[in-house]
């Protein structure tokens, strides 16, 4: 089965791009399933279901959604195998810009949009820098020049990635992404696979539910801000 990790900042167009890519498969009978990882709630599963895409939802609640992702991806993979899925896509929002669900050898996609500002590529961490494919959306509403500057800045931080411009509303460019999905590596399991990049570490008192402010309550992995 082909697993594809799709990540990107909130509202960058991940759901739209995945939906349009599915539609672009058209008559070819490709069984696609999406697992959406999020913190609190999401309306994405309705969108997917309306399109006839098999969907599961994983809510991490008070846990870091990407840690939750790694802890569960194996189970998801087995579920999809059992369901005879051809392509399993995971959608997750990179909420802190430092995390990344991308796994070595597994096709990884980062979705980022032209509206997010030309400095944004620099600010996004491994989920952009270590992706195989960078999808840039919302090119329909900005000028050619802004698109060029934006793509230029993406290339600076991830020179190896293929850059695809996709319109999440019309689906322009999605057929091309679909083609790359079908060319992704096929695996029987995720045994021995590794993350592309470490997740942000978090092991302090606040991870364990502490709410009080102040040095006395700090414990574990703590880093202090330098103000001078």
């Amino acid at each position, binding site marked *: 089965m082909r697993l594809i990790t799709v990540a990107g900042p909130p509202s960058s167009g991940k759901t739209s791009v995945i939906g349009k890519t599915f539609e672009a498969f*058209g008559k070819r009978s490709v069984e696609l399933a999406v697992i959406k990882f999020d913190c609190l709630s999401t309306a994405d599963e309705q969108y997917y279901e309306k399109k006839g895409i098999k969907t599961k939802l994983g809510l991490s609640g008070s846990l870091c959604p990407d840690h939750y992702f790694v802890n569960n991806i194996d189970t998801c993979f087995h579920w999809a195998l059992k369901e005879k899925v051809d392509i399993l896509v995971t959608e997750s929002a990179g909420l802190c*810009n*430092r995390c*990344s669900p991308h796994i070595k050898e597994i096709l990884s996609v980062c979705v980022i949009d*032209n*509206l997010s*500002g*030309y400095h944004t590529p*620099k600010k*996004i*961490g*491994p989920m952009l*820098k*270590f992706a195989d494919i960078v999808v840039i959306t919302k*090119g*329909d*509403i*900005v*000028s*050619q*020049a*802004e*698109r*060029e*500057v934006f*793509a*230029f800045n993406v*290339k*600076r*931080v*991830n*020179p*190896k990635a*293929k*850059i*695809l*411009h996709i319109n999440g509303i*019309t689906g*322009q*460019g999605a*057929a*091309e992404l679909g*083609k790359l999905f079908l060319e992704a590596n096929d695996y029987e399991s995720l045994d021995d696979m590794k993350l592309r*990049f*470490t997740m942000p570490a978090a092991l302090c008192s606040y991870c364990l539910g502490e709410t009080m402010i102040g040095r006395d309550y700090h414990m574990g992995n703590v880093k202090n801000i330098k103000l001078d």
Partner: protein
Amino acid sequence: MQCEKHFIEPYDFLTEMGFELLEKNQSMDRYMALMDDDILEDMGTNKEMLVAGYEAAHLQLVEEPGVRVNSILIKGGFNKDGEKEAIDILLKPGEIVSIVGPTGSGKSRLLGDIEWLARGDTPTGRWIVINGALPDDAQRYCFEEKLISQLSQNMNFVMDANVEEFIEMHAQSRNIQQIDGVIEAVINQANALAGEPFTRETPLTALSGGQSRALMIVDVAFLCKSPIVLIDEIENAGIDRRKALDLLVKTEKIIMIATHDPVLALMANRRLVIKNGGMHQIIESNEAEKKVLKKLEAMDQEMLTIRNALRNGEMIYSE
């Protein structure tokens, strides 16, 4: 070597990436040796990635000035009913072809096929042949931006910058020297298209519809090296369409315009008729049509005069 002039200092590159460096003028290797892996990890990157980025930044600059396109051939695929398209069409630099057809007939799809350099792998099954050869896979991904620029009526400027900063940024990404002269030229030309002048200091987001469109067109003509321009429905936003097209043609670009606007459709020497998703017919514009175009342009001119009069608070009188 030509690239030495555009050499980016490792110091500048790394500080731009957000690193705080103590010493200037060190080599990339030296900086990498000094760099702490933990700090890199904190920043969500690693040495290998940084070095690759640094090299890519150079390549980006050295690879310009782009690709020379002598011809594009669009080889027919299939219409929406799966019937073979009857025609192929060959386009050359300095040429404008308009694409006409009812709503939903597939005009934008055709532009999409060109944008993607289709190889029988889009819903239409068309093939795009550049300079007599099929672009290979690697080229397709890096060609896209270098080959093709796009203009459409939904486009707006969203960058938080003024006109001067914007042009500067675009010119830099294109490794264009003598930026000051370019800024001057772009603004002058855009003002000639739009009527209502703007300046270097005007914020992009304060430009009117017509001014934005004018700036976009001139920017594509002057700063985009891409030899192909795809225009999807750029309607009459109060800019001089004739001048705009002349400007693009002068830069020896291949221009395709999907449009419902009769003036734009007729300005092209050839027009491609799309029906039911297929390329149906190529019509060469003849003398009689050019006469009609003249008439339409005269009507346009009259509209413009009246519009300007109204803008200036004048009364309109019939002859």
